[in-house]
């Protein structure tokens, strides 16, 4: 990319980091090319902590209830958090990305690795807040050593991440040595042409001598990025040490860190083998427990799933014995890669590339959910989704949904532009992917996401809207992540209530609920659906990764009081927060930090005209068998459940039994909604009560005014 003219320039004195904070935010408005520093106030730190909290606060102040994702007022905020950037504790380099989502119309948040957030902070900025729109493609460059921010023209050059990130790393690094000091945020042409665009955040892998990327995947933040005509954001900072975050009490951090490194050294090989296969270890487990989405979530397992398990990827594809971490110090090192992969299709056919492949969610979405069981297709699709800037989870959902519609005769080649979208057709799936990249044909329509695709199909074919709703796996407009929740009521809630839409990072309760049966009553489930979403929010306030919390478990965890909470690791978090900020917190205060932001995000959905009970309703397939085939595939289980519930199923047809089961499950779901809202301090409509917002200290006048409009 030949970066052209400098359009705006801003010089600054990089702030010294104090106890995890730079105490300043970099604000850029692309419409009028303003670049300025904004103070991070004590009140912001008190109430919103950092990361996603800061992102939501800035966005709240930037938009009105009428703002659309592609209005110039919409912002993209990238922020780490106070713990972000420490090099000792595994998983401490994450960025929270917040923007109004093109898919949901509400705030979306993503938690992404790569070096951007730590280097941004050490350059003197807790957050980067971007508003406005450029009229031509631009590059934003932040030099944290020189204290210089520029907006530069980017008129020519590559369109897709793997080339953009590589070229800009080359260009802005002074030498091979210097490449590790650079992180590039970029997206690809697919993000421009669909609503499911992602942001790729890079880091330089010194062992491979390759630029790697991690994804802020959900909800279309890449689409907003490209709509603002940002080609890339580059941060450069040289001088990262173990003290760069200037913690208050380093000893506390070191002790927790070494304890965890030791645990990972001793136990990872016996537990999840994250160091060998990353999250891909889940494919086999989910298939065994009948939880792996197969063919648009119709089924939970498939005999051919053995072809796409971690064993296959480990044997043939994932490079072994490389510390694959996405920030310094993560010994869990799940960021696996396939080296020297020769691309088979599309514009990069024949190129040899290093693919950040493949995580569990991607494997399940692009492969099993589309009835495809071919590992090389997974790598190919993963590569193109990343470089085009497309979300693998949404992509897999879209293709699975379209394939089901095709197989059921709801759509045909006329609609698909000649694509034979049968389950298992990898070639057609890849063609659709390339069409999304180019913004052409059926790919352009499908790239609007499952919800809009459904509406399009209904309009074009007159198909039954109720049935299509049952089988279109989206809630709030966002596609569901990769767990079959049919037999776990708690997980149905985990998905349906999630603030940003159905992503498991808010609550993953299937095993607790369905397999280990630890939360049998409504109250138990409500408690879990209070605690875990709140607890899990905490990572994104701090710049932390969730995986080192429960993807490695201390040897004596089982004998603790609450093994599912991993108490020893929660204590580590209390220690490192205190170690960084010098603020002594308890576990309860840790939760309170999250609960504030969690409720604030819920209220933000209200501000955008959503966020009430009706938006927490999932498609029926998330709750149970939506079709005869699904019922019959688990007939024994469903028949048994109906009998136990006292239904007379003698001589009843499958359709009749489906109706009974549906009635029952829907009523259970409604009871769950009531129990969870109550536990969270929300009214029956899902609106946080005045008492709740007061208790949490987020009773700003506009918040109070907003929720009072919903007062029953």
């Amino acid at each position: 990319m030949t970066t052209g003219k400098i359009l705006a320039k801003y010089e600054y004195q990089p702030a010294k980091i104090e106890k995890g904070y730079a105490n300043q935010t970099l604000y850029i408005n692309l419409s009028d090319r303003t670049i300025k520093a904004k103070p991070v106030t004590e009140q912001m730190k008190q109430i919103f902590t950092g990361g996603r909290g800061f992102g939501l606060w800035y966005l709240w102040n930037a938009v009105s209830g009428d703002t659309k994702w592609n209005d110039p007022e919409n912002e993209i905020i990238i922020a780490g958090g106070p713990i972000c950037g420490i090099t000792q504790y595994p998983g401490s380099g994450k960025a929270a990305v917040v923007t109004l989502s093109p898919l949901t119309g509400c705030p979306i948040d993503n938690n992404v690795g790569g070096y951007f957030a730590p280097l941004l902070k050490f350059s003197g900025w807790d957050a980067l807040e971007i508003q406005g729109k450029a009229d031509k493609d631009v590059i934003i460059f932040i030099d944290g050593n020189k204290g210089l921010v520029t907006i530069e023209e980017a008129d020519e050059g590559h369109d897709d991440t793997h080339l953009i990130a590589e070229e800009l790393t080359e260009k802005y690094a002074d030498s091979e040595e210097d490449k590790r000091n650079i992180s590039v945020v970029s997206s690809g042409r697919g993000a421009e042409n669909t609503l499911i665009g992602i942001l790729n955040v890079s880091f330089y892998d010194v062992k491979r001598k390759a630029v790697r990327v991690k994804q802020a995947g959900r909800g279309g933040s890449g689409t907003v990025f490209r709509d603002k005509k940002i080609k890339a954001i580059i941060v450069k900072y040289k001088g990262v040490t173990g003290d760069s975050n200037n913690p208050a009490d380093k000893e506390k951090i070191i002790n927790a860190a070494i304890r965890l490194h030791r645990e990972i050294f001793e136990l990872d090989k016996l537990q999840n083998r994250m160091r060998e296969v990353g999250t891909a270890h889940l494919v086999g487990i989910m298939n065994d427990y009948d939880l792996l989405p197969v063919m648009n979530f119709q089924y939970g397992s498939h005999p051919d799933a053995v072809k796409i398990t971690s064993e296959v990827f480990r044997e043939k594809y994932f490079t072994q014995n490389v510390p694959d971490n996405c920030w310094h110090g993560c010994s869990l090192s799940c960021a696996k890669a396939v080296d020297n992969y020769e691309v088979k299709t599309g514009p990069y056919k024949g190129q040899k590339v290093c693919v950040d492949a493949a995580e569990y969610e991607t494997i399940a979405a692009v492969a099993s959910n589309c009835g495809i069981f071919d590992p090389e297709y997974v790598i190919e699709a993963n590569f193109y989704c990343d470089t085009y800037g497309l979300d693998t989870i949404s992509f897999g959902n879209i293709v699975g949904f379209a394939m089901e519609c095709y197989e059921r005769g709801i759509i045909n080649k006329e609609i698909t532009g000649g694509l034979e979208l049968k389950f298992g057709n990898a070639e057609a799936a890849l063609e659709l992917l390339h069409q999304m990249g180019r913004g052409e044909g059926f790919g352009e329509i499908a790239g609007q996401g499952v919800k809009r695709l459904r509406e399009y199909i209904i309009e074009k074919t007159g198909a039954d809207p109720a049935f299509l709703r049952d089988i279109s796996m989206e809630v709030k407009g966002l596609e569901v992540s990769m767990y079959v929740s049919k037999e776990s009521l708690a997980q149905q809630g985990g998905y349906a209530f999630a603030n940003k839409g159905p992503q498991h990072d808010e609550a993953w309760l299937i095993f607790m609920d369905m397999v280990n049966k630890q939360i049998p009553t409504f109250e138990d489930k409500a408690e879990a659906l209070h605690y875990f979403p709140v607890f899990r929010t905490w990572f994104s306030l701090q710049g932390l990764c969730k995986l080192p919390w429960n993807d490695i478990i201390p040897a004596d965890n089982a004998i603790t009081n609450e093994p599912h909470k991993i108490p020893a690791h929660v204590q580590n978090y209390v220690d490192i927060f205190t170690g960084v900020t010098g603020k002594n917190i308890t576990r309860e205060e840790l939760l309170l930090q999250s609960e504030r932001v969690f409720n604030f995000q819920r209220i933000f959905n209200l501000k955008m005209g959503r966020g009430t009970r009706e938006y927490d309703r999932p498609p029926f397939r998330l709750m149970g068998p939506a079709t005869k085939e699904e019922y019959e595939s688990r007939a024994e289980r469903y028949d048994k459940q109906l009998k136990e519930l006292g239904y007379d199923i003698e001589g009843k047809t499958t359709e009749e039994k489906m109706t009974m089961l549906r009635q029952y499950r829907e009523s259970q779901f409604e009871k769950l909604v009531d129990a969870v809202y109550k536990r969270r301090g929300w009214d029956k409509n899902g609106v946080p009560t005045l008492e709740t917002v007061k208790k949490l200290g987020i009773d700003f006048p506009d918040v109070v005014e907003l929720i009072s409009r919903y007062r029953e």
Partner: protein
Amino acid sequence: MKMVKAKPELCTGCGACMIACSKALYKVEDPAKSAIRVKEKPGTGVKYEIAVCNHCGECIPICSVEAVYRAKNGAVRIDHGKCVGCYMCVGFCPHNAIFVHRDINETIKCIACGSCVKACPTGAIYMEEIN
């Protein structure tokens, strides 16, 4: 190369090795900054445990920034310019022979200089040629 070996049964726990080591590495006399550690071993028999790097090199591939390397003389060394103080090698050392101190960014690790051996009054540590 020559590396430090121990005969813990001869150790009296005087700590002279740790003082010598911290002096050689950091010009201070502080056992907490030493790359060799003598620890009391509760129970019967041998009273002290001596932990020091045997330069096995298992930590080399653990480091993601290539700060750990094998030097020309065969010793496993840390490049202080590259080390980001992540301490992964500390947790992954099979012999618990890499150390840290809150005032020192990089890990504290034996460089096989022999200062500790010279300081030991009992011969509980000695240099041995290995391949």
